[in-house]
Protein backbone atom coordinates (compact mmCIF):
# COMPACT_ATOMS: atom_id res chain seq x y z
CA UNK A 1 0.00 0.00 0.00
CA UNK A 2 1.28 3.44 -0.91
CA UNK A 3 2.44 5.76 1.84
CA UNK A 4 -0.41 8.10 1.20
CA UNK A 5 -1.57 9.32 4.55
CA UNK A 6 -4.46 11.53 5.42
CA UNK A 7 -2.43 13.47 7.97
CA UNK A 8 -0.23 14.82 5.18
CA UNK A 9 -3.34 16.22 3.53
CA UNK A 10 -5.20 17.23 6.63
CA UNK A 11 -6.02 20.73 5.36
CA UNK A 12 -7.51 19.42 2.16
CA UNK A 13 -9.59 16.83 3.94
CA UNK A 14 -10.75 19.42 6.48
CA UNK A 15 -12.08 21.64 3.72
CA UNK A 16 -13.95 18.75 2.15
CA UNK A 17 -15.41 17.80 5.48
CA UNK A 18 -16.62 21.28 6.28
CA UNK A 19 -18.50 21.33 3.03
CA UNK A 20 -20.23 18.15 4.00
CA UNK A 21 -20.94 19.23 7.54
CA UNK A 22 -19.33 16.12 8.98
CA UNK A 23 -17.79 15.92 12.44
CA UNK A 24 -14.43 14.21 12.46
CA UNK A 25 -12.06 14.44 15.37
CA UNK A 26 -8.78 15.44 13.78
CA UNK A 27 -6.84 14.53 16.88
CA UNK A 28 -7.69 10.92 16.03
CA UNK A 29 -6.33 11.36 12.55
CA UNK A 30 -3.12 13.04 13.67
CA UNK A 31 -1.91 9.77 15.12
CA UNK A 32 -2.08 8.38 11.61
CA UNK A 33 -3.18 4.85 10.91
CA UNK A 34 -5.90 5.98 8.49
CA UNK A 35 -4.72 5.27 4.99
CA UNK A 36 -6.49 6.64 1.94
CA UNK A 37 -7.74 4.03 -0.48
CA UNK A 38 -8.27 4.41 -4.22
CA UNK A 39 -12.00 4.36 -3.61
CA UNK A 40 -13.69 7.67 -2.84
CA UNK A 41 -14.26 8.31 0.90
CA UNK A 42 -12.80 4.96 1.89
CA UNK A 43 -9.78 4.36 4.09
CA UNK A 44 -7.86 1.44 5.56
CA UNK A 45 -7.74 1.60 9.35
CA UNK A 46 -4.46 0.20 10.57
CA UNK A 47 -4.47 -1.32 14.05
CA UNK A 48 -1.60 -1.33 16.49
CA UNK A 49 -0.45 -4.92 17.04
CA UNK A 50 3.15 -4.95 18.33
CA UNK A 51 4.96 -8.13 17.31
CA UNK A 52 1.84 -9.22 15.43
CA UNK A 53 0.43 -10.80 18.55
CA UNK A 54 -3.25 -10.65 19.58
CA UNK A 55 -5.26 -12.50 22.18
CA UNK A 56 -7.94 -14.68 20.63
CA UNK A 57 -10.61 -12.82 22.61
CA UNK A 58 -9.48 -9.49 21.20
CA UNK A 59 -9.29 -10.95 17.69
CA UNK A 60 -12.92 -12.05 17.97
CA UNK A 61 -13.95 -8.53 19.06
CA UNK A 62 -11.88 -6.91 16.29
CA UNK A 63 -13.50 -9.16 13.71
CA UNK A 64 -16.96 -8.06 14.87
CA UNK A 65 -15.94 -4.40 14.48
CA UNK A 66 -14.31 -5.09 11.11
CA UNK A 67 -17.44 -6.85 9.94
CA UNK A 68 -19.52 -3.85 10.97
CA UNK A 69 -17.37 -1.10 9.42
CA UNK A 70 -15.63 -2.65 6.42
CA UNK A 71 -17.84 -1.97 3.41
CA UNK A 72 -16.38 -5.03 1.71
CA UNK A 73 -15.98 -7.23 4.79
CA UNK A 74 -12.21 -7.68 4.45
CA UNK A 75 -9.08 -7.17 6.52
CA UNK A 76 -5.45 -7.28 5.45
CA UNK A 77 -2.36 -8.31 7.41
CA UNK A 78 0.01 -5.41 6.88
CA UNK A 79 3.66 -5.97 6.04
CA UNK A 80 4.43 -4.91 9.60
CA UNK A 81 2.21 -7.51 11.21
CA UNK A 82 -0.70 -5.26 12.09
CA UNK A 83 -4.28 -5.87 11.08
CA UNK A 84 -5.83 -3.35 8.68
CA UNK A 85 -9.60 -2.99 8.39
CA UNK A 86 -10.23 -2.09 4.76
CA UNK A 87 -13.00 -0.06 3.10
CA UNK A 88 -13.93 2.08 6.13
CA UNK A 89 -15.86 5.27 5.39
CA UNK A 90 -14.09 8.32 6.84
CA UNK A 91 -17.38 9.57 8.24
CA UNK A 92 -17.30 6.64 10.66
CA UNK A 93 -13.78 7.20 12.01
CA UNK A 94 -14.99 8.54 15.35
CA UNK A 95 -17.30 5.57 15.86
CA UNK A 96 -14.82 2.89 14.85
CA UNK A 97 -12.09 4.42 17.01
CA UNK A 98 -14.49 4.54 20.00
CA UNK A 99 -15.51 0.92 19.50
CA UNK A 100 -11.91 -0.22 19.15
CA UNK A 101 -11.00 1.79 22.24
CA UNK A 102 -13.71 -0.07 24.20
CA UNK A 103 -11.97 -3.43 23.56
CA UNK A 104 -8.54 -1.95 24.31
CA UNK A 105 -7.41 -1.85 20.67
CA UNK A 106 -5.47 1.19 19.53
CA UNK A 107 -5.05 2.50 16.00
CA UNK A 108 -1.49 2.45 14.64
CA UNK A 109 0.62 5.31 13.38
CA UNK A 110 2.12 6.30 10.11
CA UNK A 111 4.26 9.24 9.07
CA UNK A 112 7.51 10.50 10.60
CA UNK A 113 7.59 8.79 13.96
CA UNK A 114 8.56 5.62 15.80
CA UNK A 115 6.40 2.86 14.33
CA UNK A 116 4.91 -0.24 15.92
CA UNK A 117 7.76 -2.73 16.43
CA UNK A 118 7.64 -6.05 14.61
CA UNK A 119 8.93 -9.31 16.05
CA UNK A 120 9.16 -13.05 15.46
CA UNK A 121 7.78 -15.53 18.00
CA UNK A 122 10.95 -15.39 20.07
CA UNK A 123 12.12 -17.67 22.86
CA UNK A 124 8.70 -18.05 24.45
CA UNK A 125 7.72 -20.83 22.07
CA UNK A 126 10.12 -20.97 19.11
CA UNK A 127 12.89 -23.55 19.67
CA UNK A 128 15.45 -21.35 17.87
CA UNK A 129 14.53 -18.24 19.89
CA UNK A 130 17.20 -16.75 22.12
CA UNK A 131 15.49 -13.54 23.24
CA UNK A 132 11.93 -12.72 24.27
CA UNK A 133 11.19 -10.67 21.17
CA UNK A 134 7.48 -10.38 21.91
CA UNK A 135 8.07 -8.87 25.34
CA UNK A 136 10.65 -6.48 23.89
CA UNK A 137 8.29 -5.40 21.09
CA UNK A 138 5.56 -4.72 23.63
CA UNK A 139 7.93 -2.73 25.83
CA UNK A 140 9.20 -0.63 22.93
CA UNK A 141 5.64 -0.02 21.73
CA UNK A 142 4.59 1.15 25.21
CA UNK A 143 7.60 3.43 25.64
CA UNK A 144 8.26 4.83 22.19
CA UNK A 145 5.25 4.41 19.91
CA UNK A 146 4.52 7.63 18.06
CA UNK A 147 7.64 9.51 19.18
CA UNK A 148 8.28 12.13 16.45
CA UNK A 149 11.41 11.60 14.31
CA UNK A 150 12.68 13.28 11.09
CA UNK A 151 11.25 10.42 9.00
CA UNK A 152 9.72 7.02 9.71
CA UNK A 153 11.61 4.97 12.27
CA UNK A 154 11.09 1.23 12.09
CA UNK A 155 12.30 -1.24 14.69
CA UNK A 156 12.15 -5.01 14.81
CA UNK A 157 13.17 -7.92 17.00
CA UNK A 158 14.47 -11.25 15.72
CA UNK A 159 15.03 -13.98 18.27
CA UNK A 160 17.96 -15.64 16.52
CA UNK A 161 20.43 -15.21 13.63
CA UNK A 162 17.95 -16.65 11.13
CA UNK A 163 16.57 -13.10 11.44
CA UNK A 164 12.98 -13.64 10.29
CA UNK A 165 12.15 -10.10 11.50
CA UNK A 166 14.73 -8.77 9.01
CA UNK A 167 16.71 -6.57 11.38
CA UNK A 168 19.12 -5.85 8.51
CA UNK A 169 16.33 -3.89 6.77
CA UNK A 170 15.25 -1.84 9.79
CA UNK A 171 16.13 1.68 10.86
CA UNK A 172 17.01 0.06 14.17
CA UNK A 173 16.96 -3.72 14.60
CA UNK A 174 17.69 -6.15 17.42
CA UNK A 175 18.62 -9.76 16.74
CA UNK A 176 19.02 -12.36 19.47
CA UNK A 177 22.41 -13.96 20.09
CA UNK A 178 23.97 -16.31 22.62
CA UNK A 179 27.63 -16.63 23.51
CA UNK A 180 28.53 -20.31 23.88
CA UNK A 181 31.06 -21.55 26.41
CA UNK A 182 32.55 -25.04 26.53
CA UNK A 183 33.03 -26.99 29.75
CA UNK A 184 35.62 -29.64 28.93
CA UNK A 185 35.12 -32.12 31.84
CA UNK A 186 31.51 -32.74 30.75
CA UNK A 187 32.44 -33.38 27.11
CA UNK A 188 32.38 -36.99 25.89
CA UNK A 189 33.77 -36.18 22.44
CA UNK A 190 30.56 -37.28 20.72
CA UNK A 191 31.08 -34.78 17.82
CA UNK A 192 27.39 -33.78 17.64
CA UNK A 193 28.24 -30.09 18.16
CA UNK A 194 30.51 -30.12 15.11
CA UNK A 195 27.66 -31.67 13.11
CA UNK A 196 25.12 -29.21 14.50
CA UNK A 197 27.24 -26.14 13.70
CA UNK A 198 26.20 -24.90 10.26
CA UNK A 199 28.94 -22.26 10.20
CA UNK A 200 31.93 -24.63 10.48
CA UNK A 201 32.92 -22.76 13.65
CA UNK A 202 33.30 -26.11 15.41
CA UNK A 203 35.31 -29.02 14.04
CA UNK A 204 35.98 -32.21 15.96
CA UNK A 205 39.46 -33.21 17.00
CA UNK A 206 40.19 -36.33 14.90
CA UNK A 207 41.49 -38.27 17.92
CA UNK A 208 39.39 -37.16 20.90
CA UNK A 209 36.25 -36.01 19.04
CA UNK A 210 36.27 -32.90 21.21
CA UNK A 211 35.45 -29.53 19.68
CA UNK A 212 37.97 -27.16 18.16
CA UNK A 213 36.20 -23.82 18.16
CA UNK A 214 36.86 -20.90 15.82
CA UNK A 215 35.07 -17.88 17.38
CA UNK A 216 35.62 -15.78 14.26
CA UNK A 217 33.18 -18.03 12.37
CA UNK A 218 30.58 -18.19 15.16
CA UNK A 219 27.31 -16.32 14.54
CA UNK A 220 26.04 -16.99 18.10
CA UNK A 221 22.98 -19.04 17.14
CA UNK A 222 23.28 -21.55 19.99
CA UNK A 223 22.88 -24.68 17.84
CA UNK A 224 25.87 -26.25 19.64
CA UNK A 225 24.28 -25.59 23.04
CA UNK A 226 20.97 -27.09 22.01
CA UNK A 227 22.52 -30.13 20.35
CA UNK A 228 25.03 -31.01 23.09
CA UNK A 229 23.83 -34.16 24.90
CA UNK A 230 25.88 -33.53 28.05
CA UNK A 231 25.43 -29.79 28.67
CA UNK A 232 29.11 -29.35 27.95
CA UNK A 233 28.25 -26.39 25.72
CA UNK A 234 26.48 -23.79 27.80
CA UNK A 235 25.11 -20.29 27.37
CA UNK A 236 27.47 -17.73 28.83
CA UNK A 237 25.26 -14.74 28.05
CA UNK A 238 22.35 -13.73 25.88
CA UNK A 239 21.95 -10.39 24.15
CA UNK A 240 21.00 -8.50 21.02
CA UNK A 241 23.09 -7.78 17.97
CA UNK A 242 22.08 -4.19 17.21
CA UNK A 243 21.82 -2.93 13.63
CA UNK A 244 21.15 0.57 12.39
CA UNK A 245 20.38 2.35 9.14
CA UNK A 246 18.61 -0.33 7.14
CA UNK A 247 15.57 0.23 4.96
CA UNK A 248 13.70 -1.31 2.08
CA UNK A 249 11.64 0.67 -0.38
CA UNK A 250 12.86 2.12 -3.68
CA UNK A 251 16.45 2.34 -2.58
CA UNK A 252 17.13 -0.43 -0.09
CA UNK A 253 20.02 -0.15 2.33
CA UNK A 254 21.51 -2.80 4.55
CA UNK A 255 21.83 -1.92 8.22
CA UNK A 256 25.27 -1.88 9.86
CA UNK A 257 26.07 -3.75 13.03
CA UNK A 258 26.85 -1.37 15.89
CA UNK A 259 26.74 -3.56 19.00
CA UNK A 260 27.17 -7.30 19.41
CA UNK A 261 25.74 -8.32 22.79
CA UNK A 262 23.44 -5.62 24.10
CA UNK A 263 21.63 -6.92 27.20
CA UNK A 264 17.79 -6.78 27.41
CA UNK A 265 17.98 -4.08 30.06
CA UNK A 266 19.77 -1.67 27.73
CA UNK A 267 17.42 -1.87 24.73
CA UNK A 268 15.14 0.97 25.87
CA UNK A 269 18.13 3.22 26.52
CA UNK A 270 19.63 2.38 23.11
CA UNK A 271 16.39 3.41 21.37
CA UNK A 272 15.96 6.54 23.47
CA UNK A 273 19.51 7.73 22.75
CA UNK A 274 19.32 6.80 19.08
CA UNK A 275 16.07 8.74 18.63
CA UNK A 276 17.70 11.67 20.43
CA UNK A 277 20.69 11.52 18.07
CA UNK A 278 18.42 11.16 15.02
CA UNK A 279 16.31 14.15 16.05
CA UNK A 280 19.44 16.23 16.62
CA UNK A 281 21.17 15.23 13.36
CA UNK A 282 18.56 14.09 10.86
CA UNK A 283 17.01 16.33 8.24
CA UNK A 284 13.28 16.28 7.74
CA UNK A 285 12.34 13.40 5.45
CA UNK A 286 15.72 11.69 5.82
CA UNK A 287 15.93 8.09 7.06
CA UNK A 288 18.51 7.46 9.75
CA UNK A 289 20.67 5.38 7.38
CA UNK A 290 21.14 8.44 5.18
CA UNK A 291 21.77 10.65 8.20
CA UNK A 292 24.53 8.24 9.23
CA UNK A 293 26.03 8.42 5.74
CA UNK A 294 25.95 12.22 5.76
CA UNK A 295 27.07 12.85 9.35
CA UNK A 296 29.28 9.80 9.76
CA UNK A 297 28.90 6.60 11.74
CA UNK A 298 31.64 7.65 14.15
CA UNK A 299 29.63 10.63 15.37
CA UNK A 300 26.78 8.26 16.24
CA UNK A 301 29.01 5.62 17.83
CA UNK A 302 30.71 8.21 20.03
CA UNK A 303 27.30 9.41 21.18
CA UNK A 304 26.15 5.84 21.90
CA UNK A 305 29.35 4.63 23.56
CA UNK A 306 27.95 4.73 27.15
CA UNK A 307 25.12 2.40 26.08
CA UNK A 308 26.90 0.13 23.62
CA UNK A 309 29.93 -0.59 25.80
CA UNK A 310 27.64 -2.87 27.85
CA UNK A 311 27.41 -5.15 24.84
CA UNK A 312 30.99 -5.37 23.69
CA UNK A 313 32.15 -8.25 21.53
CA UNK A 314 32.99 -11.32 23.58
CA UNK A 315 36.54 -12.40 24.27
CA UNK A 316 36.74 -16.07 23.46
CA UNK A 317 39.06 -18.64 24.82
CA UNK A 318 39.26 -21.12 22.00
CA UNK A 319 38.41 -24.53 23.45
CA UNK A 320 39.72 -27.88 22.28
CA UNK A 321 43.32 -26.73 22.03
Amino acid at each position, binding site marked *: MADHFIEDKSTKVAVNLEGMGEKVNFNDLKSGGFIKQRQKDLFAVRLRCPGGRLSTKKLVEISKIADKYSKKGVVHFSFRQSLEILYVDYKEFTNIVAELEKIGQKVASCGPRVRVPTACGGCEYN*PNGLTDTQKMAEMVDQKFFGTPTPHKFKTSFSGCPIDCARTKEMDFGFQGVVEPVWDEPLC*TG*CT*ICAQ*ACKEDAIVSDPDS*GKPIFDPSKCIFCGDCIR*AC*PTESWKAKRYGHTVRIGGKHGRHPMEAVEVCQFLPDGKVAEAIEKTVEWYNANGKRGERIGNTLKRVGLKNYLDFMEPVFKSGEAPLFKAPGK
Partner: protein
Amino acid sequence: MADIKSDALLDLRGVMCPINFVKTKLKLETMEEGEVLELVIDDGEPIQNVPKSIKEEGHKIVEVKKEKEGFFRLKIQKG
Protein backbone atom coordinates in the same frame (compact mmCIF):
# COMPACT_ATOMS: atom_id res chain seq x y z
CA MET B 1 32.89 -45.35 27.21
CA ALA B 2 31.05 -48.42 28.44
CA ASP B 3 28.22 -49.60 26.23
CA ILE B 4 24.80 -48.81 27.62
CA LYS B 5 22.24 -51.57 27.25
CA SER B 6 19.35 -50.61 25.02
CA ASP B 7 15.74 -51.78 25.26
CA ALA B 8 14.73 -51.05 21.69
CA LEU B 9 16.33 -50.29 18.33
CA LEU B 10 15.16 -47.94 15.61
CA ASP B 11 17.11 -47.73 12.37
CA LEU B 12 16.20 -44.49 10.61
CA ARG B 13 18.90 -44.44 7.95
CA GLY B 14 17.48 -42.93 4.78
CA VAL B 15 14.55 -41.31 6.65
CA MET B 16 14.33 -37.54 6.17
CA CYS B 17 13.68 -34.73 8.65
CA PRO B 18 11.30 -34.31 10.34
CA ILE B 19 9.85 -37.80 9.75
CA ASN B 20 12.82 -39.36 11.55
CA PHE B 21 12.11 -37.28 14.64
CA VAL B 22 8.38 -38.06 14.55
CA LYS B 23 9.15 -41.79 14.30
CA THR B 24 11.56 -41.47 17.23
CA LYS B 25 8.93 -39.65 19.25
CA LEU B 26 6.28 -42.27 18.51
CA LYS B 27 8.68 -45.08 19.44
CA LEU B 28 9.59 -43.35 22.72
CA GLU B 29 5.91 -42.98 23.55
CA THR B 30 5.56 -46.78 23.59
CA MET B 31 8.44 -47.11 26.04
CA GLU B 32 8.66 -46.73 29.82
CA GLU B 33 10.48 -43.86 31.52
CA GLY B 34 14.13 -44.69 32.01
CA GLU B 35 14.25 -47.22 29.17
CA VAL B 36 16.88 -46.73 26.48
CA LEU B 37 16.22 -46.47 22.74
CA GLU B 38 19.06 -47.10 20.32
CA LEU B 39 18.65 -44.84 17.32
CA VAL B 40 20.53 -44.94 14.03
CA ILE B 41 20.38 -41.76 11.95
CA ASP B 42 22.22 -40.32 8.99
CA ASP B 43 25.00 -37.78 8.98
CA GLY B 44 24.07 -34.27 7.75
CA GLU B 45 20.68 -32.78 8.40
CA PRO B 46 19.35 -35.59 10.64
CA ILE B 47 22.26 -35.38 13.09
CA GLN B 48 21.99 -31.56 13.08
CA ASN B 49 18.34 -31.59 14.06
CA VAL B 50 17.21 -34.81 15.71
CA PRO B 51 19.32 -34.60 18.91
CA LYS B 52 18.17 -31.00 19.55
CA SER B 53 14.53 -32.00 19.20
CA ILE B 54 14.97 -35.07 21.42
CA LYS B 55 16.47 -32.89 24.15
CA GLU B 56 13.67 -30.35 23.81
CA GLU B 57 11.13 -33.14 24.41
CA GLY B 58 12.82 -33.87 27.74
CA HIS B 59 14.71 -37.06 26.86
CA LYS B 60 18.37 -37.67 27.59
CA ILE B 61 21.00 -38.61 25.05
CA VAL B 62 23.24 -40.96 26.99
CA GLU B 63 25.57 -42.18 24.28
CA VAL B 64 26.66 -41.04 20.82
CA LYS B 65 28.80 -43.04 18.42
CA LYS B 66 29.86 -41.88 15.00
CA GLU B 67 30.00 -44.84 12.64
CA LYS B 68 32.44 -44.87 9.75
CA GLU B 69 29.79 -45.34 7.06
CA GLY B 70 28.32 -41.85 7.51
CA PHE B 71 25.74 -42.42 10.22
CA PHE B 72 25.36 -42.03 13.97
CA ARG B 73 24.26 -44.44 16.67
CA LEU B 74 22.57 -42.64 19.58
CA LYS B 75 21.23 -44.03 22.82
CA ILE B 76 18.31 -42.12 24.24
CA GLN B 77 16.93 -42.53 27.71
CA LYS B 78 13.24 -41.75 27.89
CA GLY B 79 12.57 -38.75 30.16
